[in-house]
């Protein structure tokens, strides 16, 4: 027995934060693992595809259905229990538990209603002198843990703590035919490139793809394939194409008090120069480093001007031309860190006067709001453009490169954008050499040029040893990058793995790799952008009040693929 509803007009199930819309007939709502297995068993035998969805906060369309039915795990949520092993405490959760719920559960510090996964763990966690937390912070607190695992989510704290992958202890996976596998880190490993594991009565045995996943930079382009890899890593970051996570154990870390800081610089150059020094200065050692360029500062100013309450921060200082965000541990070492920081700031035209710091949660929350306001402003804007330009949906510039290539990549961004005469803003995880670049578009003509440039960025990032998809994942809108990264051969090998684990290709069709080459062919057509100056429609985007910076768009070569 399981619940199935016709989707009809409730289009919520057909879209996610990528703002692309798909199509599906029904939504399936399992309340338990049992029901989930039943659903997959039935659907596998019929060969009807299902797209797994949870909180639908992804930005690459991973949970947007492409036909078939939507399998929404929204009722499978909640924290089940607490355990402890040699690495430390972990929490056992259902797949649709949101990061906010996890945070709130841990903040309550009373676990009496939870079950002990290992003996006495609840009580001992409650009695720990410091609070614990789940350190992966993809900024979106409404995201589900299942989604985080499927995409190997990361965020600002990845700078110190690593991505989701580093914090998963064990998962339970329901395979395409309803069989159940329990995967614990360290228990099942590939032998060279040969992987074999059992799930229920099945035994899967297959060759892994021959490429090596690039884990030296922030990277979210599929699972971490390598020699002797852990089975767990095959599922983490696989975007739901190999199986559905029905339960997970996530490790926790002790939370030490932090101070949030914003340091303002006169211009972009000085801030970027300071980044290098801060990163290499062991006396400062921040928790993460985020950047906001001059154009982003302008965006915040204009938003504040239109609606002072939209971001709960005081007005930005007049002399602020760019900004760096970073957290420092709030302990005895803070004064020394500030002293070192002051030297760096002075060398680059700034000072500790031109800064904000927040020790209390309310202040830190407001500074987080400021950081979040730029992507938010842009998301909102893209959504509002949908009326006039229905084919628009968001697609991130999401490239990370190794430290030594950071300058070259930055210079490349700047050169290409200036060459094309495009206005842009840049913000985000500069600590991981992973800033987001947003082009401020004014016409369809610019849109075409922007698309072309983004492809060049992706190619350049790969050439420099980076990733074209550092944290947003591949989903449905970046599948062409898989080939860019791993070549036709790599993709073909991954496809073979998929065919072994999900012979009828019912799970999340369209994510990571398509069933055949069709998609990458269509990508190619889409990527034949350079000729693409079509039409000269102007976008009616003037006088939009809150954001009179004009329409902001991100390139989307295969836009329309789902309309």
């Amino acid at each position, binding site marked *: 027995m399981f619940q199935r*509803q016709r989707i009809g*007009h*409730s289009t*919520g199930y057909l879209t996610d934060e990528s703002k692309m819309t798909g199509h599906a007939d029904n939504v399936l*709502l399992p309340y338990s693992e049992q029901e989930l297995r039943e659903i997959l068993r039935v659907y596998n035998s019929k060969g009807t595809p299902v797209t797994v969805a949870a909180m639908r906060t992804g930005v690459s369309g991973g949970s947007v259905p492409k036909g078939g039915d939507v399998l929404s795990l*929204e*009722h499978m949520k909640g924290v089940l229990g607490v355990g402890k092993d040699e690495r430390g405490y972990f929490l056992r959760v259902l797949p649709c538990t949101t990061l906010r719920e996890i945070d709130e559960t841990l903040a309550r510090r009373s676990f009496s209603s939870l079950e002990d996964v290992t003996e006495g763990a609840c009580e001992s966690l409650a009695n720990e002198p410091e609070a614990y937390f789940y350190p992966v912070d993809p900024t979106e607190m409404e995201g589900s843990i299942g989604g985080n695992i499927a995409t190997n989510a990361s965020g600002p704290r990845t700078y110190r703590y690593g991505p989701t992958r580093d914090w998963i202890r064990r998962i339970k996976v329901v395979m395409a035919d309803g069989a159940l596998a329990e995967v614990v880190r360290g228990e099942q490993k590939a032998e060279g490139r040969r992987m074999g594991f059992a799930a229920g009565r099945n035994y899967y045995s297959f060759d892994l793809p021959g490429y090596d996943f690039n884990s030296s930079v922030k990277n979210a382009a599929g699972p971490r394939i390598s020699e002797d890899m852990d089975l767990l890593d095959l599922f983490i970051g696989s975007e739901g194409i190999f199986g559905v996570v029905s339960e997970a154990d996530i490790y926790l870390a002790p939370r030490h008090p932090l101070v949030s*800081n*914003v*340091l303002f610089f006169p211009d972009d150059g000085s801030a970027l120069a300071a980044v290098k020094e801060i990163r290499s200065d062991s006396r400062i050692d921040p928790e993460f480093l985020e950047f906001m360029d001059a154009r982003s500062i302008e965006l915040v100013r204009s938003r504040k001007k239109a609606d*002072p*309450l939209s*971001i*709960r*921060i*005081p007005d930005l200082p007049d002399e602020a031309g760019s900004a760096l965000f970073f957290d420092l541990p709030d302990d005895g070492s803070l*004064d020394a860190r*500030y002293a070192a*920081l002051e030297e760096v700031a002075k060398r680059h035209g700034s*000072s*500790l*006067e*031109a*800064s*904000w*710091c*927040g*020790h*209390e949660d*309310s*202040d830190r929350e*407001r*500074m987080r709001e400021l950081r979040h306001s730029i992507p938010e402003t842009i998301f909102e804007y893209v959504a509002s453009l949908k009326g006039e330009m229905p084919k628009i949906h968001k697609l991130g510039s999401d490239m990370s490169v190794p430290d030594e290539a950071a300058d070259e990549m930055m210079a490349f961004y700047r050169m290409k954008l200036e060459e094309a005469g495009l206005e842009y803003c840049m913000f985000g995880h500069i600590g991981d050499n992973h800033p987001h670049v947003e082009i401020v578009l004014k016409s369809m003509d610019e849109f075409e040029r922007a698309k072309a440039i983004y492809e060049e960025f992706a190619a350049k990032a790969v050439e420099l040893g980076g990733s074209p998809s550092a944290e947003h994942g591949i989903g449905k809108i970046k599948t062409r990058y898989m080939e860019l990264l791993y070549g036709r051969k790599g993709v073909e090998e991954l496809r073979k793995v998929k065919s072994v684990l999900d012979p009828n290709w019912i799970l999340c069709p369209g994510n990571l790799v398509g069933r055949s080459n069709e998609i990458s062919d269509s990508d190619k057509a889409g990527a034949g952008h350079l000729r693409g100056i079509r039409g000269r429609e102007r976008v009616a985007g003037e006088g939009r009040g809150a954001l009179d910076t004009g329409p902001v768009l991100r390139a989307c070569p295969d836009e329309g693929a789902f309309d």
Partner: protein
Amino acid sequence: MPSILDPYCEHALTKVLSIKEEGDEVVAFTMGPPQASEALRRCLCLGADKAFLLSDRAFAGADTWATSRAVAAFVQRYGSDADLVVFGQKASDGETGQVPFEVAQMLSVQQFAYVKDMRRSGGSFVVAQDYGDSEVECEAPAGSVVAFSDVDPCGTLMSISDRLRGAQKPLETIDRVGLGLGLYSVGLKGSRTRIVRTGTNDVRRKNRKAVVGNPSRVAELLLEEMGARP
């Protein structure tokens, strides 16, 4: 319990600092347990010049009267020449903002409640009060009690240097003897009200839960409840 500067008080402080002139001194004070010094430290970081913490074990259990008594004694001893005695009118913990006005009476000075704004006019201060149904502008003579009843959601953020400077500023603790008050004037013993019993606030209802996934169904349910038809 961490001690956090109440947003109403913080707003009051920033308003005062915004009209601070050369030679003015802004003194922050509060009454509370030792950890309340954290809130005072924040005041110092935000720009107050010095701070006093009225703290004594004997102060525990003080009601409005006993609290006002201690505050009035402090103002008389340490701030008798103050131009204004400023309060934030509502404390986050459910304190009802009665203290400023009892203090005003004990000091025999004028009181100004629900103040939204304050400015200087010549040598004196002009306050704008908001009574809900009317707005009043008054001149506040020296020594008046001014209570701000507003918060600023976009309130101040201090700079790192503010923080470092604030850490160096003086913060002094004053006990009961320092205020010259007797044991029966403060705390529980000096209170004019007492709690006879506490109870739980049980107003629970018989609850029926419905899990509804479809927003339009929720909307229909609500419409039905409101007795309105689309």
